[in-house]
Structures are given as structure tokens and as C-alpha cells.
């Protein structure tokens, strides 16, 4: 009998707890109703990618020495370097270079290891195509400069949350000249070399 009463007791407790957790959950959801939407109206507004954004890879044909380092450091040996040995000059002669962005994982190893800096990451991320074979970029396509979000007249560029001025949450009405919270990379660089006096004057407390 006592056991039975205990069972009923714990049953009621469980039911009560279930209700309590439900209430907690709903109050969290309700709290979210008060928050600002973070929507970016995509085709008309775009976020400015961050400085280290790893987008589509840019490639400069003339700098490439066909050393194939990029192929070796690539996790999946993706870049295709098509070269022939010129017998007369005893030098490699590059014919073609291509990367398939349908397979690329954008790890940036090739960019890191390229001895001549002919590879670089861009901030282009709109790689949608109707045919996945169109994602196999040859050296001409890889050499094309990316379209910049900030220079595209049909797009309203928006800053990401971390790049907004202090205390501002809405990226819509921010002038491009407003400094973001925290230091810019060059400011950090200057800050790290306090002995160089001519640079020290320029850094005038960026937090304000």
C-alpha cells in the first residue's frame, strides 16, 4: 500500500515536472519572439565575408611553376596540373591547371603551401550551377577575379555581427566608414610592435 502511494506520488511529481519543463521551454521560445530578426534578404542584401574567408580559389597561370606541391598537400589530390617537359629548355611547360570545386573542401592547404603564391583564396561563395561539371574550373575560370559584394551596385552589403561598431546590432544603416569593435589586423600588427614609434602615434585607441 505504501509502495503504491509512493508510486502515485512519484507519478504526480513526474507529471508536474513535465509541465514545468514544458513551461520553461515555452518561456524560452516566447523570449525569442522579442528578439530582432537576423534575416539577410539574400539576393538583395549580402553579408560581407570575413577577411580570412575561404571561398573559391583564385589562380594565376603566369606565376605557376608546375611544381605540383598543391597536389601533394591536397587531402584528395584534387588540382590537375597538366604540364610537359620542354626538352630544349629543360623546363616544365604548363599547359592547363584545373580544380573541381564540386569536390574541393576549401581547406586552403594548396594556398598555404604554394611556393610562388599563385594560388589564393577569394571571398566568392556563390558557386551554384545547373550542372555539376560546370564546377570544374580550368585556369581561365580560376584566373577570373571574384565579384566583390561591396562593389556590386545591385547588392546592399551588410556587415556581420562581429564587424559592427560597438553596441550596434542592426547592420542596415551603418555607414561604411564606421569602425568596427576591436582592432583591425594592421592595428593589431602595430600594437604588437610598440617599439616602432611612428606607428604608435597613429593608433589612437580604436575602441572609441
Amino acid at each position, binding site marked *: 500500500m505504501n509502495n503504491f502511494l509512493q508510486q502515485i506520488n512519484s507519478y504526480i511529481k513526474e*507529471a508536474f515536472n513535465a509541465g514545468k519543463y514544458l513551461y520553461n521551454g515555452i518561456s524560452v521560445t516566447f523570449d525569442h519572439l522579442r528578439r530582432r530578426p537576423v534575416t539577410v534578404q539574400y539576393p538583395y542584401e549580402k553579408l560581407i565575408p570575413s577577411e580570412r574567408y575561404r571561398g573559391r580559389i583564385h589562380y594565376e597561370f603566369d606565376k605557376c611553376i608546375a611544381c605540383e606541391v598543391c597536389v601533394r598537400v591536397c587531402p584528395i589530390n584534387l588540382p590537375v596540373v597538366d604540364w610537359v617537359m620542354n626538352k630544349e629548355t629543360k623546363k616544365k611547360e604548363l599547359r592547363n591547371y584545373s580544380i573541381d570545386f564540386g569536390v574541393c573542401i576549401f581547406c586552403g592547404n594548396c594556398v598555404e603551401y604554394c611556393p610562388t603564391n599563385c594560388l589564393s583564396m577569394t571571398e566568392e561563395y556563390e558557386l551554384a550551377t545547373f550542372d555539376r561539371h560546370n564546377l570544374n574550373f580550368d585556369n581561365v575560370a580560376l584566373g577570373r577575379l571574384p565579384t566583390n559584394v561591396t562593389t556590386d551596385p545591385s547588392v546592399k552589403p551588410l556587415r556581420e555581427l562581429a564587424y559592427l561598431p560597438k553596441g550596434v546590432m542592426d547592420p542596415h544603416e551603418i555607414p561604411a566608414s564606421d569602425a568596427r569593435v576591436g582592432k583591425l589586423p594592421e592595428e593589431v600588427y602595430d600594437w604588437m610592435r610598440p617599439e616602432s614609434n611612428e606607428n604608435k602615434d597613429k593608433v589612437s585607441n580604436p575602441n572609441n
Partner: protein
Amino acid sequence: MSIAITTQFICFTVLSLVVIIGALGVVLLESIVYSAFLLGGVFMSVAGLYLLLNASFVAAAQVLVYVGAVNVLIIFAIMLVNKKEDLKPINDIKSRRVISTSICLTLLSLLIRVDLTNVWSLSSPQNSIGEESTIRIGEHLFSDYLLPFEVASVLLLMAMIGAIVLARRDVMSKDISTGLPVDQELIEKSSEPLLTNKN
């Protein structure tokens, strides 16, 4: 004829046609699933007939129990046992059909004759209680029909327990046809209850 009477007549004709044709479909159609869904239609139109007879409570009960419970149960059962199987041919199926049909037709003609020839002692329509019938049914159930009411509740309980016991899979420890022990593990998986009693 006034509009109300015409409406009644049309309603009755349509409903009874649906009842008869639907019932014929239930027994004659090849596909058992169609039969089951037609049965639902028959139940619904019978409920419509009850509405014509001023018995809205019983009509709603008919819909609730027959359509909502019995018919859904039947469809469930069909989905559980619906396997394409070739029935073994029976030699004298034709004569069986002929005999049963003639018996049914004879019974039908007999019943119709009784219906038409007998003189029914109809009561006057102004005695009708109409919408009050729900209250009257309740009064009946708790006064002169109290015993049948209680017995019916016991019957329902028995039927529920019996159906559960019959439909449970783990009542047999071994397969009847092969004699091999039945694998109970797959059937009776222990599951964490929703509101556990942790003590």
C-alpha cells in the same frame, strides 16, 4: 406537397438507395478494401436514416461507434491480414450460390409481405418527443434499463480484455503449425515508460 415533405422524401430515397447499393457492394465487390470503405458509407447513411427518424443522439452514436470504431477496426484488420492468396476452388460453388440466393430472396419476399400486410398500430405524431430524446434515453438507461446498462458495461470490459488477450502475440510459446518455439525477444521489446517511477 410542401417543401419539407419533398426534402424528406428525397433524403429518404437517396439514403436508402445508398444503404442498399452500398450493402450490395460490401458483399459483392472483389476488393475487400473497397468493401470496408463502402461499409463506412452504409453506416453513415444509416445514421442519416436515424436523423430522418428524429433520433439525432442515436445517429451521432452510430457515427461515433460504427464509423469511428468498428469500421476503422475492420480496415485495420484488413491491412493486417491483407495478403494476396488464391482461394482453393470449391466444386459445388454454383449450386451453393443458387441455393443461398434463393433462400435470401424467399426470406426477403416473406419479410416484405409481412411489412406490407401487417397493420401497425401507429401512435399519433404529436406525442413525439423529438429533441428531448437524449434526456429520455438517459432516463431509460438509469431506471428501467439499469441492469442491461451495467451488464453492457461489464460486457464491454470483458470484450476489451478478451480482444487484448486474443490479439497479443506472446500468448503462445511455440508455433502451432511447426512446433518451433516462438522468438519472444522481437515481439516483447521492453521500452522505457514515458513517465517512469524512479524510486
